[in-house]
């Protein structure tokens, strides 16, 4: 690191308010060439907003941005890109059906006489991926044929142009598994060595310490401080983020296990349930009050399994019974009627209704199950919304806020509230803590445990093995779209489960 060079980017005295919300108050931020800088803070602290004002998505109310020592005014993301700031936003917008190279060059395809020069485009895309990201793939294939991690790298490639001096990554790892995170970090280290300044947002403390040189902390839209990563302990970091002395968040036992529980009633049972191309036939039994974890790599079929149980996709073989009776569940609606709820991992495309308010998003599933005419009165809706906003700490605590204006983590909480409200017998949670801050994550884990104590069955999917181990009574391990093992009691250790995942 050559700090003597002086910062490439300096933001000072930044203010940004949205109607009713002070998103940023007098925030400063510096970025040096050749460093990875973590931007930390709770959900809604203003991280994404800081990035968006820097890249011209939002205009700042006041404050100054200097790039390479010169004051700049960045009016749009295009201008930011031209000025050398490359960004991958929290909500990545790639087109899964287009080829990799189209995704990289979309909107700026090399053309001659108006016609896209495909050969040149593919060649350039290939070169870019190989030279800068060490990624060797077939760029003519559609994007969706690659894993999320690779897609993430492609998003980076798209944003990186030759003159890039600053790379911004807003929660790039929230949907990656261990190995993929490693791959991404490798690339980040290379870019850093090339002298790029990287701004990185994450809620995973381990990753912060693994990759970053310095840390800036925001809380409630205010600048708390800038620290060298090596000089800030984990505990200090967290307490600075949440603003109170750090209470041990990991009070839950590391591994749960069934031992203490008496399992009698079966909530749901799948017998040789399967769907071609999605998941091979599997058996799974979920008891009343049991938390079943699904572990496996991305693409191992975890989500596909969950979608079958919920009727989001139709099974083409096997039997699903709920409370002992065989049910043909052909639609989410039917699943909901049988007391099943499914919290999707894609909050933007399959979760929130952006244009509606927090209140409406919360009552939506309950209202849907009651039909058109048994309306939940407005008064009741307000009560419900207030109750859940308090219970799971949705911020800002305003039920009439549009969901699209909430921070990513808070949107996630809204969807969780929507399903809790339906009081399901079986709650399927697909990556429920994705994008959620440390404090809230522990809260959600505790919530899952207390729900199961009250008799709710939970199917818990997460890429974080620690988390799955912590809440699950038993764990079904998936590999290559197969349920390869169901593990209980003594088998529930990090090492054994990892072995099962890897196929040892």
């Amino acid at each position: 690191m050559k700090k003597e060079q002086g910062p490439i980017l300096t933001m000072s005295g930044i203010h940004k308010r949205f109607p009713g919300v002070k998103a940023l108050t007098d925030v400063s931020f510096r970025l040096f060439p050749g460093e990875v800088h973590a931007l930390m803070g709770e959900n809604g602290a203003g991280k994404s907003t800081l990035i968006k004002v820097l890249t011209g998505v939002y205009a700042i109310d006041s404050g100054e941005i200097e790039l390479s020592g010169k004051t700049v005014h960045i009016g749009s993301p295009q201008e930011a890109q031209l000025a050398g700031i490359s960004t991958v936003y929290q909500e990545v917008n790639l087109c899964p059906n287009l080829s990799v190279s189209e995704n990289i060059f979309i909107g700026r395809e090399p053309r001659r006489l108006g016609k896209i020069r495909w050969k040149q485009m593919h060649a350039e895309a290939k070169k870019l991926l190989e030279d800068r990201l060490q990624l060797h793939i077939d760029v003519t294939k559609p994007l969706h044929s690659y894993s999320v991690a690779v897609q993430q790298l492609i998003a980076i490639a798209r944003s990186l142009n030759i003159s890039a001096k600053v790379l911004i990554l807003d929660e790039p790892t929230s949907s990656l598994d261990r190995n993929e995170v490693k791959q991404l970090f490798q690339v980040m280290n290379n870019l850093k060595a090339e002298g790029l300044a990287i701004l990185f947002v994450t809620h995973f403390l381990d990753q912060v310490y693994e990759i970053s040189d310095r840390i800036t902390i925001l809380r409630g839209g205010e600048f708390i401080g800038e620290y060298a990563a090596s000089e800030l302990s984990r505990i200090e970091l967290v307490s600075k983020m949440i603003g109170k002395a750090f209470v041990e968040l990991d009070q839950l036992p590391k591994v749960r296990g069934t031992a203490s529980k008496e399992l009698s009633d079966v909530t749901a049972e799948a017998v040789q349930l399967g769907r071609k191309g999605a998941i091979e036939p599997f058996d799974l039994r979920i008891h009343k009050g049991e938390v079943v974890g699904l572990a496996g790599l991305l693409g191992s079929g975890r989500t596909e399994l969950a979608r079958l149980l919920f009727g989001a996709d139709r099974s083409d073989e096997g039997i699903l019974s709920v409370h002992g009776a065989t049910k043909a569940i052909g639609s989410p609606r039917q699943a909901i009627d049988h007391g099943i709820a499914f919290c999707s991992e894609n909050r933007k495309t399959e979760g929130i209704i952006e244009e509606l308010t927090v209140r409406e998003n919360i009552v939506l599933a309950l209202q849907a199950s009651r039909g058109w005419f048994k309306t939940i009165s407005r008064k009741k809706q307000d009560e419900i919304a207030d109750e859940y906003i308090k219970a799971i700490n949705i911020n800002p605590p305003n039920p009439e806020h549009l969901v699209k204006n909430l921070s990513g983590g808070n949107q996630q909480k809204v969807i969780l509230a929507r399903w809790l409200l339906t009081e399901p017998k079986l709650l399927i949670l697909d990556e429920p803590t994705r994008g959620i801050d440390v404090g809230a994550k522990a809260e959600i884990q505790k919530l899952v445990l207390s729900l199961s104590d009250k008799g709710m069955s939970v199917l818990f999917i997460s890429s974080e093995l620690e988390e799955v181990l912590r809440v699950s009574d038993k764990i079904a391990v998936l590999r290559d779209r197969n349920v390869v093992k169901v593990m209980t009691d003594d088998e529930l250790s990090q090492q054994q489960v990892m072995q099962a995942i890897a196929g040892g």
Partner: protein
Amino acid sequence: MVKHHLFWPLTVLGALLLFNLVYSPAFFRIELRNGQMYGSLIDILNFGAPLILVAIGMTLVIATKGIDLSVGSVVAISGAIACLLISKGADQNAFGLVMLAVAVALALSVALGIWNGLLVSVFGIQPIIATLILMVAGRGVAQLISGGQIITVNSETYNYIGAGALGSLPFAIYVVLIVLLVASLLTRRTALGMFIESVGGNPTASRLAGIRSRAVMFAVYIFCGLCAGVAGLLLSSNVSSADGNNAGLWYELDAILAVVIGGTSLNGGRFYLMGTVIGALIIQTLTTTIYIIGVRPEITLVVKAFVVLIVCLVQSEAFRKTLVQRFKMRKYPLEQEVKRHA
């Protein structure tokens, strides 16, 4: 206040009225003749009634991310079938006959709505294509019904619907009020409104939340067909005749425009019934104004298009932002430098 969804529509309507006030003060005069009110304002409400009706139905369709291009044809069909039935009657004034004609016309409109709903929600055809079918075919059906000619009826009972007065106001205004009331109750007192906005905002998420989006889509296309049917009755009864060729021509475009001016986005989601009503009134006022100030007929459409363009620009947040930014940018001389960087 600027944030309120009715702010811009009302401002535009106000501006139009103000223009008229300055241009011809007689515009605002309302006379009582035989206990009935007359005047340009009443005319706007009266002649605007069919458009308002069609636009109300269109609002709900657009809110689901759909569109209904067939409304103009449905207007023509509904008027044609009603007039045909009445013209075949022995006593054209008979209340029973007129009611029967009205009922048949409305039933047919509902059936056409079901047809659209079927194509869109069951067969999954894109709304613009699905309704285009009926837009084209429907004109033909209307001409078939009317035998390619204008059917005239001689029925005071029927004529009352579109030209009569209840108290001192035109009957058509009450029809609009009733439909508006029904639409509001249906969408705001039941959960239908929330479901429509949800389906329009994010269909996938809505399905996963357990909303029967097919049923919702069916409902809005049927309602839209019904609204167009009522509008057809108002139009044809007002002139006591049905013209399969020209009745309701270009109504779909005016209706879509009214919806958009009223603040409902073509991307679906939030919808504003009152906004639509004001949007339709703006269009009708504009038409009347152009007529009053005597714009040459050849260029009326151009003038109308120009005003509509301005209305849309004023409403567009992006446009307002750009204006404001262009203004602000002068304070940032260095902005140029960043650009040159490229």
